[in-house]
Protein backbone atom coordinates (compact mmCIF):
# COMPACT_ATOMS: atom_id res chain seq x y z
CA UNK A 1 0.00 0.00 0.00
CA UNK A 2 1.57 3.25 -1.11
CA UNK A 3 -0.61 5.24 1.24
CA UNK A 4 0.32 3.19 4.26
CA UNK A 5 4.00 3.49 3.42
CA UNK A 6 3.55 7.23 3.10
CA UNK A 7 1.95 7.44 6.53
CA UNK A 8 4.84 5.45 7.95
CA UNK A 9 7.45 7.67 6.34
CA UNK A 10 5.64 10.79 7.43
CA UNK A 11 5.55 9.44 11.01
CA UNK A 12 9.26 8.75 10.96
CA UNK A 13 9.90 12.26 9.66
CA UNK A 14 8.36 13.77 12.81
CA UNK A 15 11.07 12.23 15.00
CA UNK A 16 13.56 15.09 14.55
CA UNK A 17 10.83 17.60 15.32
CA UNK A 18 9.87 15.67 18.46
CA UNK A 19 13.49 15.66 19.55
CA UNK A 20 13.66 19.39 18.93
CA UNK A 21 10.58 19.93 21.06
CA UNK A 22 12.13 17.98 23.90
CA UNK A 23 15.29 20.09 23.62
CA UNK A 24 13.34 23.34 23.85
CA UNK A 25 11.20 22.16 26.74
CA UNK A 26 14.31 20.89 28.54
CA UNK A 27 16.27 24.09 28.12
CA UNK A 28 13.35 26.29 29.14
CA UNK A 29 14.33 25.78 32.73
CA UNK A 30 17.90 26.84 32.04
CA UNK A 31 16.64 30.20 30.79
CA UNK A 32 15.70 31.02 34.33
CA UNK A 33 18.46 32.85 36.08
CA UNK A 34 19.82 30.98 39.09
CA UNK A 35 19.69 27.38 40.23
CA UNK A 36 17.29 25.21 38.23
CA UNK A 37 16.61 23.08 41.29
CA UNK A 38 15.44 26.12 43.17
CA UNK A 39 13.34 27.15 40.22
CA UNK A 40 11.80 23.70 40.14
CA UNK A 41 11.08 23.59 43.83
CA UNK A 42 10.07 27.17 44.31
CA UNK A 43 11.51 29.87 46.53
CA UNK A 44 10.27 28.35 49.75
CA UNK A 45 12.17 25.10 49.25
CA UNK A 46 14.59 24.00 51.92
CA UNK A 47 18.28 23.58 51.15
CA UNK A 48 17.91 19.85 51.80
CA UNK A 49 15.20 19.53 49.20
CA UNK A 50 17.33 21.40 46.71
CA UNK A 51 20.27 19.16 47.40
CA UNK A 52 18.05 16.10 47.08
CA UNK A 53 16.84 17.25 43.69
CA UNK A 54 20.39 17.92 42.59
CA UNK A 55 21.21 14.36 43.45
CA UNK A 56 18.06 12.93 41.88
CA UNK A 57 18.25 14.71 38.51
CA UNK A 58 22.04 14.87 38.51
CA UNK A 59 22.02 18.62 38.08
CA UNK A 60 25.76 18.63 38.72
CA UNK A 61 26.40 16.43 35.72
CA UNK A 62 27.21 17.81 32.24
CA UNK A 63 24.17 19.31 30.54
CA UNK A 64 23.93 16.76 27.74
CA UNK A 65 23.83 13.94 30.30
CA UNK A 66 21.01 15.75 32.06
CA UNK A 67 19.19 16.08 28.74
CA UNK A 68 19.60 12.38 27.97
CA UNK A 69 18.17 11.36 31.30
CA UNK A 70 15.32 13.87 30.80
CA UNK A 71 14.66 12.30 27.41
CA UNK A 72 14.84 8.81 28.92
CA UNK A 73 12.22 9.74 31.50
CA UNK A 74 10.06 11.32 28.82
CA UNK A 75 10.07 8.10 26.82
CA UNK A 76 8.70 6.30 29.86
CA UNK A 77 5.95 8.86 30.15
CA UNK A 78 7.56 10.40 33.22
CA UNK A 79 7.06 14.16 33.10
CA UNK A 80 8.12 14.74 36.69
CA UNK A 81 6.04 15.55 39.76
CA UNK A 82 3.90 18.57 40.31
CA UNK A 83 5.17 20.72 43.17
CA UNK A 84 1.73 22.13 43.86
CA UNK A 85 -0.26 18.90 43.86
CA UNK A 86 2.54 16.47 44.60
CA UNK A 87 1.22 14.15 41.88
CA UNK A 88 2.63 12.83 38.61
CA UNK A 89 2.37 15.49 35.96
CA UNK A 90 1.28 12.87 33.44
CA UNK A 91 -1.74 11.84 35.51
CA UNK A 92 -2.68 15.49 35.99
CA UNK A 93 -2.49 15.99 32.24
CA UNK A 94 -4.66 12.95 31.64
CA UNK A 95 -7.30 14.55 33.82
CA UNK A 96 -7.20 17.86 32.03
CA UNK A 97 -6.71 16.75 28.42
CA UNK A 98 -10.37 15.84 27.65
CA UNK A 99 -11.74 19.34 28.18
CA UNK A 100 -9.09 20.85 25.91
CA UNK A 101 -9.68 18.25 23.20
CA UNK A 102 -13.43 18.81 23.35
CA UNK A 103 -12.83 22.50 23.05
CA UNK A 104 -10.49 22.09 20.07
CA UNK A 105 -12.86 19.87 18.15
CA UNK A 106 -15.84 22.11 18.86
CA UNK A 107 -13.90 25.20 17.83
CA UNK A 108 -12.65 23.63 14.60
CA UNK A 109 -16.09 22.42 13.60
CA UNK A 110 -17.70 25.77 14.33
CA UNK A 111 -14.94 27.71 12.60
CA UNK A 112 -15.43 25.62 9.46
CA UNK A 113 -19.21 25.91 9.64
CA UNK A 114 -18.92 29.68 9.78
CA UNK A 115 -16.09 30.35 7.39
CA UNK A 116 -16.63 27.88 4.53
CA UNK A 117 -20.09 29.16 3.53
CA UNK A 118 -19.00 32.77 3.88
CA UNK A 119 -15.83 32.20 1.87
CA UNK A 120 -17.74 30.40 -0.88
CA UNK A 121 -20.34 33.15 -0.92
CA UNK A 122 -17.67 35.83 -1.22
CA UNK A 123 -15.69 33.98 -3.89
CA UNK A 124 -18.71 33.27 -6.06
CA UNK A 125 -19.99 36.85 -5.77
CA UNK A 126 -16.67 38.52 -6.27
CA UNK A 127 -16.67 42.30 -5.81
CA UNK A 128 -20.41 42.25 -5.24
CA UNK A 129 -21.93 43.43 -1.98
CA UNK A 130 -21.71 40.02 -0.30
CA UNK A 131 -18.02 39.87 -1.06
CA UNK A 132 -17.35 43.36 0.23
CA UNK A 133 -19.09 42.54 3.49
CA UNK A 134 -17.30 39.24 3.95
CA UNK A 135 -13.97 40.88 3.14
CA UNK A 136 -14.52 43.39 5.92
CA UNK A 137 -14.80 40.58 8.48
CA UNK A 138 -11.06 39.79 8.62
CA UNK A 139 -10.14 43.46 8.84
CA UNK A 140 -12.20 43.95 11.97
CA UNK A 141 -11.81 40.44 13.31
CA UNK A 142 -8.04 40.08 13.18
CA UNK A 143 -7.59 42.59 15.97
CA UNK A 144 -10.10 41.07 18.38
CA UNK A 145 -8.51 39.66 21.53
CA UNK A 146 -9.89 36.16 22.00
CA UNK A 147 -10.58 36.55 25.69
CA UNK A 148 -12.41 39.79 25.07
CA UNK A 149 -14.63 38.12 22.48
CA UNK A 150 -15.33 35.46 25.11
CA UNK A 151 -16.33 38.01 27.70
CA UNK A 152 -18.55 39.82 25.22
CA UNK A 153 -20.22 36.57 24.23
CA UNK A 154 -20.89 35.83 27.88
CA UNK A 155 -22.29 39.29 28.29
CA UNK A 156 -24.56 39.00 25.26
CA UNK A 157 -25.61 35.37 25.14
CA UNK A 158 -25.21 33.71 28.49
CA UNK A 159 -26.18 36.48 30.85
CA UNK A 160 -28.85 38.25 28.83
CA UNK A 161 -30.35 35.26 27.06
CA UNK A 162 -29.39 32.60 29.61
CA UNK A 163 -28.74 30.26 26.77
CA UNK A 164 -25.54 28.57 27.84
CA UNK A 165 -23.58 27.88 30.99
CA UNK A 166 -21.06 30.62 31.67
CA UNK A 167 -18.34 28.48 33.16
CA UNK A 168 -17.31 24.98 34.11
CA UNK A 169 -17.36 21.77 32.15
CA UNK A 170 -20.11 19.65 33.71
CA UNK A 171 -20.02 15.92 34.28
CA UNK A 172 -21.84 14.16 31.46
CA UNK A 173 -21.08 14.37 27.77
CA UNK A 174 -24.28 16.36 27.28
CA UNK A 175 -23.15 18.85 29.85
CA UNK A 176 -19.71 18.89 28.29
CA UNK A 177 -21.26 19.72 24.99
CA UNK A 178 -23.39 22.57 26.24
CA UNK A 179 -20.58 24.04 28.28
CA UNK A 180 -18.20 23.82 25.35
CA UNK A 181 -20.38 25.78 22.93
CA UNK A 182 -19.56 29.31 24.08
CA UNK A 183 -15.82 28.79 24.50
CA UNK A 184 -15.76 26.91 21.20
CA UNK A 185 -17.60 29.73 19.48
CA UNK A 186 -15.13 32.19 20.98
CA UNK A 187 -12.16 30.42 19.46
CA UNK A 188 -14.04 29.87 16.23
CA UNK A 189 -14.70 33.59 15.97
CA UNK A 190 -11.02 34.30 16.51
CA UNK A 191 -10.08 31.83 13.80
CA UNK A 192 -12.79 32.80 11.33
CA UNK A 193 -11.18 36.02 10.03
CA UNK A 194 -7.98 34.22 9.08
CA UNK A 195 -9.83 31.26 7.59
CA UNK A 196 -12.24 33.38 5.58
CA UNK A 197 -9.42 35.38 4.10
CA UNK A 198 -7.38 32.37 3.03
CA UNK A 199 -10.34 30.28 1.94
CA UNK A 200 -11.70 33.09 -0.21
CA UNK A 201 -8.31 33.58 -1.84
CA UNK A 202 -7.84 29.89 -2.60
CA UNK A 203 -11.42 29.54 -3.81
CA UNK A 204 -10.96 32.49 -6.16
CA UNK A 205 -7.68 31.00 -7.37
CA UNK A 206 -9.54 27.83 -8.30
CA UNK A 207 -12.49 29.65 -9.88
CA UNK A 208 -10.06 31.69 -12.00
CA UNK A 209 -8.08 28.68 -13.11
CA UNK A 210 -8.01 27.50 -16.69
CA UNK A 211 -9.48 24.12 -15.84
CA UNK A 212 -12.62 25.74 -14.52
CA UNK A 213 -12.81 27.67 -17.78
CA UNK A 214 -12.36 24.34 -19.56
CA UNK A 215 -15.18 22.85 -17.51
CA UNK A 216 -17.41 25.75 -18.44
CA UNK A 217 -16.40 25.43 -22.07
CA UNK A 218 -17.50 21.81 -21.89
CA UNK A 219 -21.00 23.08 -21.25
CA UNK A 220 -21.30 21.46 -17.84
CA UNK A 221 -23.92 22.84 -15.48
CA UNK A 222 -22.86 25.42 -12.93
CA UNK A 223 -23.51 22.91 -10.19
CA UNK A 224 -21.35 20.28 -11.85
CA UNK A 225 -18.53 22.81 -12.39
CA UNK A 226 -18.55 23.69 -8.70
CA UNK A 227 -18.90 20.19 -7.28
CA UNK A 228 -16.64 18.25 -9.64
CA UNK A 229 -13.99 20.79 -10.51
CA UNK A 230 -13.86 23.43 -7.81
CA UNK A 231 -14.46 22.03 -4.36
CA UNK A 232 -11.81 19.35 -4.24
CA UNK A 233 -9.16 21.65 -5.62
CA UNK A 234 -10.13 24.41 -3.23
CA UNK A 235 -9.99 21.91 -0.38
CA UNK A 236 -6.45 20.98 -1.35
CA UNK A 237 -5.19 24.50 -0.81
CA UNK A 238 -7.47 25.20 2.14
CA UNK A 239 -6.41 22.19 4.14
CA UNK A 240 -2.89 23.56 4.44
CA UNK A 241 -4.25 26.90 5.58
CA UNK A 242 -6.38 25.15 8.15
CA UNK A 243 -3.43 23.12 9.43
CA UNK A 244 -1.28 26.19 9.93
CA UNK A 245 -4.02 27.95 11.82
CA UNK A 246 -4.93 25.07 14.04
CA UNK A 247 -1.57 25.63 15.74
CA UNK A 248 -2.78 29.14 16.45
CA UNK A 249 -6.09 27.75 17.62
CA UNK A 250 -4.40 25.35 20.02
CA UNK A 251 -2.67 28.31 21.60
CA UNK A 252 -5.85 30.27 22.09
CA UNK A 253 -7.48 27.47 24.13
CA UNK A 254 -5.22 28.61 26.94
CA UNK A 255 -6.85 31.99 27.40
CA UNK A 256 -10.36 30.89 26.56
CA UNK A 257 -10.29 28.14 29.15
CA UNK A 258 -9.39 30.83 31.62
CA UNK A 259 -12.30 33.06 30.61
CA UNK A 260 -14.80 30.23 30.91
CA UNK A 261 -13.12 28.48 33.84
CA UNK A 262 -12.87 25.26 31.84
CA UNK A 263 -10.79 22.64 33.65
CA UNK A 264 -8.47 22.06 30.69
CA UNK A 265 -4.73 22.10 30.15
CA UNK A 266 -4.67 25.85 29.65
CA UNK A 267 -6.06 26.67 33.07
CA UNK A 268 -3.74 24.11 34.52
CA UNK A 269 -0.77 25.79 32.86
CA UNK A 270 -1.77 29.22 34.14
CA UNK A 271 -2.35 27.92 37.65
CA UNK A 272 1.04 26.27 37.48
CA UNK A 273 2.65 29.49 36.31
CA UNK A 274 1.27 31.50 39.19
CA UNK A 275 2.38 28.83 41.63
CA UNK A 276 5.75 28.44 39.91
CA UNK A 277 4.99 24.76 39.41
CA UNK A 278 7.64 24.31 36.75
CA UNK A 279 7.23 20.59 35.98
CA UNK A 280 3.58 21.16 35.13
CA UNK A 281 4.42 24.11 32.87
CA UNK A 282 6.98 21.93 31.10
CA UNK A 283 4.54 19.08 30.79
CA UNK A 284 1.70 21.19 29.40
CA UNK A 285 4.01 22.94 26.95
CA UNK A 286 5.18 19.57 25.73
CA UNK A 287 1.66 18.22 25.25
CA UNK A 288 0.56 21.35 23.42
CA UNK A 289 3.50 20.92 21.05
CA UNK A 290 2.61 17.26 20.53
CA UNK A 291 -0.92 18.31 19.63
CA UNK A 292 0.42 20.70 16.99
CA UNK A 293 2.66 18.00 15.57
CA UNK A 294 -0.29 15.62 15.44
CA UNK A 295 -2.48 18.18 13.70
CA UNK A 296 0.23 18.91 11.15
CA UNK A 297 0.59 15.22 10.50
CA UNK A 298 -3.13 14.86 9.95
CA UNK A 299 -3.17 17.86 7.62
CA UNK A 300 -0.36 16.41 5.55
CA UNK A 301 -2.10 13.08 5.29
CA UNK A 302 -5.37 14.72 4.31
CA UNK A 303 -3.51 16.81 1.76
CA UNK A 304 -1.87 13.73 0.29
CA UNK A 305 -5.19 11.93 0.14
CA UNK A 306 -6.80 14.82 -1.74
CA UNK A 307 -4.03 15.84 -4.08
CA UNK A 308 -2.63 13.28 -6.51
CA UNK A 309 0.35 15.52 -7.18
CA UNK A 310 1.82 14.78 -3.76
CA UNK A 311 4.51 12.19 -4.22
CA UNK A 312 3.54 9.14 -2.27
CA UNK A 313 6.34 6.98 -3.56
Amino acid at each position, binding site marked *: MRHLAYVGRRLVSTIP*VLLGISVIVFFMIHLVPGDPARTLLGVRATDEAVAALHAKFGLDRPIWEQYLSFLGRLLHGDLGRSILYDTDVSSLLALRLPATLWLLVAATVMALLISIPLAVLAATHRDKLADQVVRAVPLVG*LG*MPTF*WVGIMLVLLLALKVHAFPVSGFGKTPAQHLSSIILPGLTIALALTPILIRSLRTSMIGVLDSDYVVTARAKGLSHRRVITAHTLRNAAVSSITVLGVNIAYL*VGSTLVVERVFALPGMGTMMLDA*IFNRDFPVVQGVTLVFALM*VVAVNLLTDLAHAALDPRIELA
Partner: protein
Amino acid sequence: MTAPAVPVGPVEPLQPLQPSRLPWLRGRGGEGVLRLNPTLVIGLSLLVVIVLAGVLAPVLSPWDPVAQDLTASLQPPGNGHLLGTDQLGRDVFTRLLYAARVDLRVGALAVLFPFIIGTTLGLLAGWFGGWFDLVLMRVVDMVVAFPSFVLIIALVFALGQGTASIYIAITLVGWVAYARIVRGEVLVAKEQEYALAARASGLPTWRILLRHLLPNVLLQAFVFAMSDVVLSILAIVTLGYLGLGVPPPTPDWGSMISEGQNFVFTKWYLTAVPGLAVVVTGLALALVADGVVQRSGRR
Protein backbone atom coordinates in the same frame (compact mmCIF):
# COMPACT_ATOMS: atom_id res chain seq x y z
CA MET B 1 38.33 45.66 -26.30
CA THR B 2 38.04 49.36 -25.92
CA ALA B 3 34.80 51.19 -25.80
CA PRO B 4 33.97 52.66 -29.16
CA ALA B 5 34.78 56.34 -29.03
CA VAL B 6 31.80 57.12 -31.14
CA PRO B 7 28.71 55.15 -30.25
CA VAL B 8 27.28 53.32 -33.21
CA GLY B 9 24.07 55.11 -32.53
CA PRO B 10 20.56 54.01 -33.00
CA VAL B 11 20.40 51.06 -35.30
CA GLU B 12 16.87 51.72 -36.37
CA PRO B 13 14.23 54.36 -35.81
CA LEU B 14 13.79 54.85 -32.10
CA GLN B 15 10.79 53.38 -30.50
CA PRO B 16 9.17 56.19 -28.61
CA LEU B 17 9.55 55.68 -24.90
CA GLN B 18 6.19 54.49 -23.88
CA PRO B 19 4.67 53.80 -20.54
CA SER B 20 4.06 50.20 -19.65
CA ARG B 21 2.03 48.39 -22.26
CA LEU B 22 -0.26 47.20 -19.48
CA PRO B 23 -2.06 50.35 -18.42
CA TRP B 24 -3.31 48.85 -15.17
CA LEU B 25 0.28 48.50 -13.99
CA ARG B 26 0.83 52.16 -14.50
CA GLY B 27 0.76 54.30 -11.42
CA ARG B 28 -1.51 57.27 -11.18
CA GLY B 29 1.07 59.38 -9.45
CA GLY B 30 4.49 59.97 -10.95
CA GLU B 31 7.32 57.49 -10.73
CA GLY B 32 8.82 57.10 -7.30
CA VAL B 33 6.11 59.14 -5.64
CA LEU B 34 4.34 57.35 -2.84
CA ARG B 35 1.12 56.38 -4.47
CA LEU B 36 -1.76 56.19 -2.07
CA ASN B 37 -4.99 54.29 -2.28
CA PRO B 38 -8.11 54.71 -0.14
CA THR B 39 -7.37 51.64 1.99
CA LEU B 40 -3.90 52.91 2.81
CA VAL B 41 -5.13 56.45 3.48
CA ILE B 42 -7.87 55.32 5.86
CA GLY B 43 -5.57 52.89 7.64
CA LEU B 44 -2.78 55.42 8.02
CA SER B 45 -5.10 58.17 9.26
CA LEU B 46 -6.64 55.83 11.80
CA LEU B 47 -3.19 54.79 12.96
CA VAL B 48 -2.06 58.40 13.22
CA VAL B 49 -5.13 59.22 15.34
CA ILE B 50 -4.40 56.32 17.71
CA VAL B 51 -0.72 57.18 17.99
CA LEU B 52 -1.52 60.86 18.57
CA ALA B 53 -4.07 59.91 21.23
CA GLY B 54 -1.32 58.06 23.05
CA VAL B 55 1.34 60.70 22.56
CA LEU B 56 -0.93 63.59 23.48
CA ALA B 57 -2.52 61.80 26.44
CA PRO B 58 -1.24 64.37 28.98
CA VAL B 59 -2.73 67.13 26.85
CA LEU B 60 -6.02 65.40 26.18
CA SER B 61 -6.77 64.45 29.74
CA PRO B 62 -6.24 66.29 33.05
CA TRP B 63 -6.19 63.07 35.10
CA ASP B 64 -3.26 61.00 36.26
CA PRO B 65 -3.46 57.44 34.89
CA VAL B 66 -2.12 55.78 38.03
CA ALA B 67 -3.15 58.03 40.94
CA GLN B 68 -5.75 56.21 43.00
CA ASP B 69 -8.76 57.83 44.60
CA LEU B 70 -10.70 55.18 46.44
CA THR B 71 -13.42 57.66 47.36
CA ALA B 72 -14.30 57.97 43.69
CA SER B 73 -14.20 54.31 42.64
CA LEU B 74 -16.48 52.90 39.95
CA GLN B 75 -18.09 56.22 39.09
CA PRO B 76 -20.39 56.15 36.08
CA PRO B 77 -19.46 58.25 33.02
CA GLY B 78 -19.90 61.96 33.52
CA ASN B 79 -18.56 64.50 35.95
CA GLY B 80 -15.44 65.05 33.92
CA HIS B 81 -14.85 61.31 33.68
CA LEU B 82 -15.69 60.53 30.10
CA LEU B 83 -15.83 56.79 30.77
CA GLY B 84 -16.17 56.90 34.52
CA THR B 85 -13.61 55.52 36.93
CA ASP B 86 -12.35 52.06 37.75
CA GLN B 87 -12.39 50.25 41.08
CA LEU B 88 -9.40 52.25 42.27
CA GLY B 89 -10.96 55.53 41.25
CA ARG B 90 -8.71 56.11 38.26
CA ASP B 91 -10.12 57.83 35.18
CA VAL B 92 -10.77 55.09 32.62
CA PHE B 93 -10.49 57.32 29.57
CA THR B 94 -7.09 58.55 30.70
CA ARG B 95 -5.89 55.03 31.31
CA LEU B 96 -7.18 54.08 27.84
CA LEU B 97 -5.01 56.79 26.27
CA TYR B 98 -1.91 55.95 28.27
CA ALA B 99 -2.44 52.25 27.53
CA ALA B 100 -2.26 53.08 23.82
CA ARG B 101 1.27 54.37 24.44
CA VAL B 102 2.35 51.21 26.19
CA ASP B 103 0.68 48.67 23.93
CA LEU B 104 1.67 50.34 20.67
CA ARG B 105 5.27 50.87 21.70
CA VAL B 106 5.76 47.40 23.09
CA GLY B 107 3.85 45.90 20.18
CA ALA B 108 5.95 47.68 17.57
CA LEU B 109 9.27 47.05 19.29
CA ALA B 110 8.38 43.43 19.87
CA VAL B 111 8.05 43.11 16.08
CA LEU B 112 11.14 45.10 15.23
CA PHE B 113 13.60 42.65 16.78
CA PRO B 114 12.19 39.49 15.18
CA PHE B 115 11.88 41.38 11.89
CA ILE B 116 15.57 42.29 11.85
CA ILE B 117 16.85 38.96 13.13
CA GLY B 118 14.52 36.80 11.08
CA THR B 119 15.08 38.77 7.87
CA THR B 120 18.84 38.61 8.22
CA LEU B 121 18.90 34.90 8.96
CA GLY B 122 16.40 34.14 6.19
CA LEU B 123 18.39 36.18 3.67
CA LEU B 124 21.62 34.40 4.50
CA ALA B 125 20.04 30.95 4.63
CA GLY B 126 18.25 31.43 1.33
CA TRP B 127 21.30 32.75 -0.47
CA PHE B 128 24.03 30.51 0.87
CA GLY B 129 22.02 27.36 1.53
CA GLY B 130 24.16 24.48 2.73
CA TRP B 131 24.57 23.48 6.34
CA PHE B 132 23.63 26.90 7.68
CA ASP B 133 20.30 26.71 5.90
CA LEU B 134 19.78 23.13 7.03
CA VAL B 135 20.44 23.89 10.71
CA LEU B 136 18.39 27.06 10.66
CA MET B 137 15.41 25.35 9.11
CA ARG B 138 15.55 22.54 11.68
CA VAL B 139 15.48 25.14 14.45
CA VAL B 140 12.53 26.78 12.70
CA ASP B 141 10.74 23.42 12.57
CA MET B 142 11.22 23.05 16.32
CA VAL B 143 9.89 26.49 17.16
CA VAL B 144 6.83 26.25 14.91
CA ALA B 145 5.93 22.95 16.51
CA PHE B 146 4.78 24.94 19.54
CA PRO B 147 1.60 26.96 19.60
CA SER B 148 3.32 30.33 19.57
CA PHE B 149 1.23 31.75 22.37
CA VAL B 150 1.92 28.82 24.68
CA LEU B 151 5.63 29.19 24.06
CA ILE B 152 5.54 32.94 24.68
CA ILE B 153 3.75 32.45 27.99
CA ALA B 154 6.12 29.70 29.03
CA LEU B 155 9.10 31.89 28.14
CA VAL B 156 7.74 34.94 29.95
CA PHE B 157 7.21 32.70 32.93
CA ALA B 158 10.73 31.31 32.73
CA LEU B 159 12.31 34.72 32.26
CA GLY B 160 10.28 36.43 34.94
CA GLN B 161 7.59 39.07 34.47
CA GLY B 162 8.54 42.40 32.90
CA THR B 163 8.70 44.29 29.63
CA ALA B 164 12.15 42.95 28.80
CA SER B 165 10.90 39.38 29.12
CA ILE B 166 8.06 40.16 26.75
CA TYR B 167 10.49 41.46 24.13
CA ILE B 168 12.76 38.45 24.49
CA ALA B 169 9.92 35.93 24.47
CA ILE B 170 8.22 37.41 21.42
CA THR B 171 11.55 37.71 19.61
CA LEU B 172 12.53 34.12 20.34
CA VAL B 173 9.23 32.92 18.91
CA GLY B 174 8.61 35.57 16.25
CA TRP B 175 11.83 35.58 14.21
CA VAL B 176 10.86 32.23 12.77
CA ALA B 177 8.09 33.61 10.60
CA TYR B 178 10.35 36.27 9.07
CA ALA B 179 13.15 33.79 8.48
CA ARG B 180 10.73 31.49 6.65
CA ILE B 181 9.14 34.21 4.55
CA VAL B 182 12.40 35.87 3.56
CA ARG B 183 14.17 32.59 2.89
CA GLY B 184 11.34 31.52 0.61
CA GLU B 185 11.40 34.81 -1.25
CA VAL B 186 15.18 34.67 -1.60
CA LEU B 187 15.03 31.14 -3.00
CA VAL B 188 12.73 32.46 -5.72
CA ALA B 189 14.51 35.78 -6.23
CA LYS B 190 17.98 34.32 -6.52
CA GLU B 191 16.90 32.32 -9.54
CA GLN B 192 15.30 35.39 -11.09
CA GLU B 193 17.32 36.63 -13.97
CA TYR B 194 18.06 40.02 -12.40
CA ALA B 195 19.90 38.27 -9.57
CA LEU B 196 21.76 36.08 -12.05
CA ALA B 197 22.56 39.18 -14.07
CA ALA B 198 23.97 40.91 -11.00
CA ARG B 199 26.18 37.88 -10.41
CA ALA B 200 27.17 37.77 -14.05
CA SER B 201 28.19 41.41 -13.77
CA GLY B 202 30.73 40.31 -11.19
CA LEU B 203 29.25 42.36 -8.36
CA PRO B 204 30.30 41.25 -4.88
CA THR B 205 27.95 39.07 -2.87
CA TRP B 206 27.22 41.63 -0.15
CA ARG B 207 26.20 44.12 -2.78
CA ILE B 208 23.92 41.67 -4.57
CA LEU B 209 22.31 40.75 -1.26
CA LEU B 210 21.79 44.29 -0.04
CA ARG B 211 21.10 46.15 -3.26
CA HIS B 212 19.39 43.58 -5.46
CA LEU B 213 17.78 40.93 -3.27
CA LEU B 214 16.87 42.63 -0.02
CA PRO B 215 14.74 45.42 -1.52
CA ASN B 216 12.82 42.86 -3.54
CA VAL B 217 12.20 40.36 -0.74
CA LEU B 218 11.51 42.90 1.97
CA LEU B 219 7.96 43.68 0.86
CA GLN B 220 6.54 40.32 1.93
CA ALA B 221 8.30 40.53 5.28
CA PHE B 222 7.03 44.06 5.73
CA VAL B 223 3.45 43.15 4.93
CA PHE B 224 3.67 40.31 7.39
CA ALA B 225 5.16 42.65 9.98
CA MET B 226 2.07 44.84 9.66
CA SER B 227 -0.23 42.02 10.68
CA ASP B 228 2.40 40.77 13.10
CA VAL B 229 2.18 44.02 15.02
CA VAL B 230 -1.51 43.20 15.49
CA LEU B 231 -0.59 39.72 16.69
CA SER B 232 2.06 41.06 19.02
CA ILE B 233 -0.30 43.66 20.48
CA LEU B 234 -2.81 40.85 20.96
CA ALA B 235 -0.12 38.81 22.70
CA ILE B 236 0.78 41.69 25.00
CA VAL B 237 -2.85 42.43 25.76
CA THR B 238 -3.46 38.78 26.48
CA LEU B 239 -0.42 38.60 28.73
CA GLY B 240 -1.78 41.66 30.48
CA TYR B 241 -5.16 39.98 30.86
CA LEU B 242 -3.52 36.93 32.38
CA GLY B 243 -1.50 39.10 34.74
CA LEU B 244 1.80 38.30 33.01
CA GLY B 245 2.14 41.49 31.03
CA VAL B 246 3.45 44.97 31.61
CA PRO B 247 3.67 45.21 35.42
CA PRO B 248 0.99 47.32 37.15
CA PRO B 249 0.13 50.05 37.75
CA THR B 250 1.15 50.98 34.18
CA PRO B 251 -2.12 50.94 32.25
CA ASP B 252 -2.49 48.38 29.47
CA TRP B 253 -5.63 47.43 27.60
CA GLY B 254 -5.30 43.80 28.63
CA SER B 255 -5.13 44.45 32.36
CA MET B 256 -7.96 46.98 32.01
CA ILE B 257 -10.18 44.31 30.47
CA SER B 258 -9.17 41.90 33.20
CA GLU B 259 -9.99 44.39 35.95
CA GLY B 260 -13.26 45.39 34.31
CA GLN B 261 -14.31 41.76 33.95
CA ASN B 262 -15.16 41.68 37.67
CA PHE B 263 -17.83 44.28 37.07
CA VAL B 264 -18.95 43.10 33.64
CA PHE B 265 -22.55 42.65 34.80
CA THR B 266 -22.95 46.22 36.05
CA LYS B 267 -20.34 48.26 34.19
CA TRP B 268 -19.98 46.49 30.86
CA TYR B 269 -18.13 49.39 29.23
CA LEU B 270 -15.15 48.90 31.56
CA THR B 271 -14.49 45.70 29.62
CA ALA B 272 -15.92 46.57 26.24
CA VAL B 273 -14.12 49.84 25.58
CA PRO B 274 -10.50 48.72 26.08
CA GLY B 275 -11.31 45.74 23.87
CA LEU B 276 -12.69 48.05 21.20
CA ALA B 277 -9.48 50.05 21.38
CA VAL B 278 -7.57 46.88 20.49
CA VAL B 279 -10.00 46.10 17.67
CA VAL B 280 -9.66 49.58 16.17
CA THR B 281 -5.88 49.41 16.38
CA GLY B 282 -5.97 46.04 14.69
CA LEU B 283 -8.26 47.43 11.99
CA ALA B 284 -5.92 50.35 11.33
CA LEU B 285 -2.90 48.10 10.96
CA ALA B 286 -4.80 45.59 8.82
CA LEU B 287 -5.90 48.40 6.51
CA VAL B 288 -2.33 49.67 6.22
CA ALA B 289 -1.10 46.17 5.41
CA ASP B 290 -3.82 45.71 2.78
CA GLY B 291 -3.08 49.12 1.33
CA VAL B 292 0.61 48.33 0.99
CA VAL B 293 -0.19 45.05 -0.73
CA GLN B 294 -2.60 46.75 -3.13
CA ARG B 295 -0.08 49.45 -3.88
CA SER B 296 2.61 46.96 -4.70
CA GLY B 297 0.22 45.14 -6.98
CA ARG B 298 0.84 41.81 -5.29
CA ARG B 299 -1.86 39.64 -3.93
